[in-house]
């Protein structure tokens, strides 16, 4: 755990210094994508890696956060900070409702019903033209006030630091979560639900609390996305974000803190590198998922987690 923490701190330091060296709009854009993806992957990892349930409709929270921010900015003229907080709150509230319904189910049922939720939201966003402007989406979401009037490059750098701060907040929250009683209880539920119950842990409650935290994180990522791209359409609920989240968390290593940081870096860079190949790129992603599941189920950071377990065992 100490090793993981130190790695994360080192990565954070490198990320802080990166813009000083990489004075380039395109590279900063990639940096923003990476920090955005780290928020999403960290959020997804809390459920997949610690509670051990697989919410295939996790994009619901991303979408709710994005739409909350978009509506807050365009309809009510709220500033960025207010939108960010509102997006977290709305997503968390929806996470509570969705979790209360779906966490009574397990395994495949949980997976499919969460997906149904996201799909219903996508259809609503597509059809409720009065609120969401339907398939046209909401365009022209303003940039945060402190970035107004800066050059394009400085805006990107600003967004990068903003995103880095938010991503660091997510990762720190995840770190605290894992080292809390809540996180340990979640792991015990994941490892053996019945033993956990026998020592007085209520799996539903643990799952629900984690779900709400993860939802708030994804909502925050959504608000950040809305203000960065300045456009939100129904596709934020779509499966393509879900696919990226799955690949990032899997490849990085689920159930580790470093995994959801390594994964996004690799996947975003790979995505940019393979951009020329279009659909072939996605075919390759499919093969990567299959290969990771078959040959590297622990992900890249898996050995770190195992090292931690050995260290823990040695102490005990």
């Amino acid at each position: 755990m100490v090793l993981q923490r130190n790695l994360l701190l080192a990565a954070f330091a490198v990320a802080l210094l990166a813009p000083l060296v990489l004075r380039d709009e395109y590279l900063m854009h990639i940096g923003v994508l990476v920090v955005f993806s780290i928020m999403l992957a960290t959020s997804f990892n809390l459920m997949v890696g610690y509670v051990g349930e697989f919410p295939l409709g996790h994009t619901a929270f991303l979408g709710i956060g994005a739409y909350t921010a978009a509506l807050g900015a365009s309809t009510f003229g709220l500033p960025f900070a207010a939108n960010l907080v509102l997006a977290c709150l709305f997503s968390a509230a929806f996470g509570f409702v969705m979790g209360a319904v779906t966490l009574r189910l397990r395994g495949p049922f949980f997976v499919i019903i969460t997906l149904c939720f996201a799909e219903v939201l996508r259809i609503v966003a597509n059809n409720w033209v009065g609120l969401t402007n339907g398939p046209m989406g909401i365009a022209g979401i303003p940039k945060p006030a402190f970035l107004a009037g800066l050059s394009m490059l400085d805006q990107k750098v600003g967004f990068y630091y903003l995103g880095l701060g938010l991503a660091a907040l997510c990762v720190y929250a995840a770190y605290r979560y894992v080292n809390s009683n809540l996180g340990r209880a979640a792991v015990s539920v994941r490892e053996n639900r019945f033993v956990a119950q026998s020592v007085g842990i209520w799996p539903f409650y643990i799952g629900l609390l984690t779900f709400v935290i993860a939802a708030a994180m994804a909502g925050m990522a959504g608000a950040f996305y809305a203000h960065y791209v300045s456009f939100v359409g129904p596709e934020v609920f779509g499966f393509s974000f879900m696919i990226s989240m799955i690949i990032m968390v899997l490849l990085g290593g689920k159930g580790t803190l470093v995994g959801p940081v390594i994964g996004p870096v690799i996947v975003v860079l790979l995505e940019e590198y393979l951009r020329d190949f279009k659909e072939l790129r996605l075919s390759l992603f499919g093969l990567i998922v299959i290969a990771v599941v078959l040959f590297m189920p622990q992900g890249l950071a898996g050995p770190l987690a195992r090292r931690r377990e050995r260290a823990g065992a040695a102490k005990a």
Partner: protein
Amino acid sequence: MDLFLQLLANGLVNGTFYALSALGLTLVFGLMRVVNFAHGEFYVIGGLAGWALTNAVGLHFFLALPIVILGMGVFGLLIDRFLIERVRDQGPETGILLTIGLSIFIVNTALLVVGTAPLKVVSPFLNRPIFIGPVVVTQARLFTVALCAVLILAVHLLVQRTTLGRAMRATFQDATAARLVGIRTRHVYGLTFALGSALAGTAGMLLGSIYVAQATIGGIVSLKAFVVVILGGMGSFAGAIVGGLVLGLVEAIWGGYGPSGYVDAVGFALVIVMLLVRPYGLFSKQVERA
């Protein structure tokens, strides 16, 4: 009243089609407990192969159908041997991820090969309308409904009445015990998955002659098939039929009287409510086990 009857008829026809497209999943997910997210993509492959054989090669529909069935069966067997078998005993999550990877791969490869255009399987039946009282159904649909019924019945009999079917049920109840009494479970797993894929492919080809075959529809087909299987209760054929019919009817009636943009959402809302009220489906005898 005439409108209602017509909607009822449409709902029943669509419902039968839903039941057919979920039939393979009833075997693979309901009995074999593999959460196959690539089911819709198998359906798409069946449809595209049907299009290629009837349209590009120019074979007759009934000559192409057995080729598709056989081809999809072999394909399913290979998938089971090389992919599913490796994650057999690792819980549902691994299987979910594996099949999601497979589905991403198939969708995008299909897009590379045929593009996004909707393609039609050449059908031997005319789209001539048949009037039954105030209700209109096309000839092709009526024939496909009949074929669906035959297929569903055949699979039901296969699972309930044959030695292979008994071996299947034994294997999925307790694989170790099944091996002890001499069932070659490896073959049973392979054959069941092959049968599931063949059924998905058949559904894709049959429905590709009524609607269209398209590379990108796999996701929605998968999700609706899961809805049907869960609505009906895991592994129950009667349940799958009822689940399909319920979904078809509710969608048709909603589409006739309600805002039509939300038609697809109705099924999902239905299954969410269903799982709140009866978590194990309408017809399932399944109870929670420790």
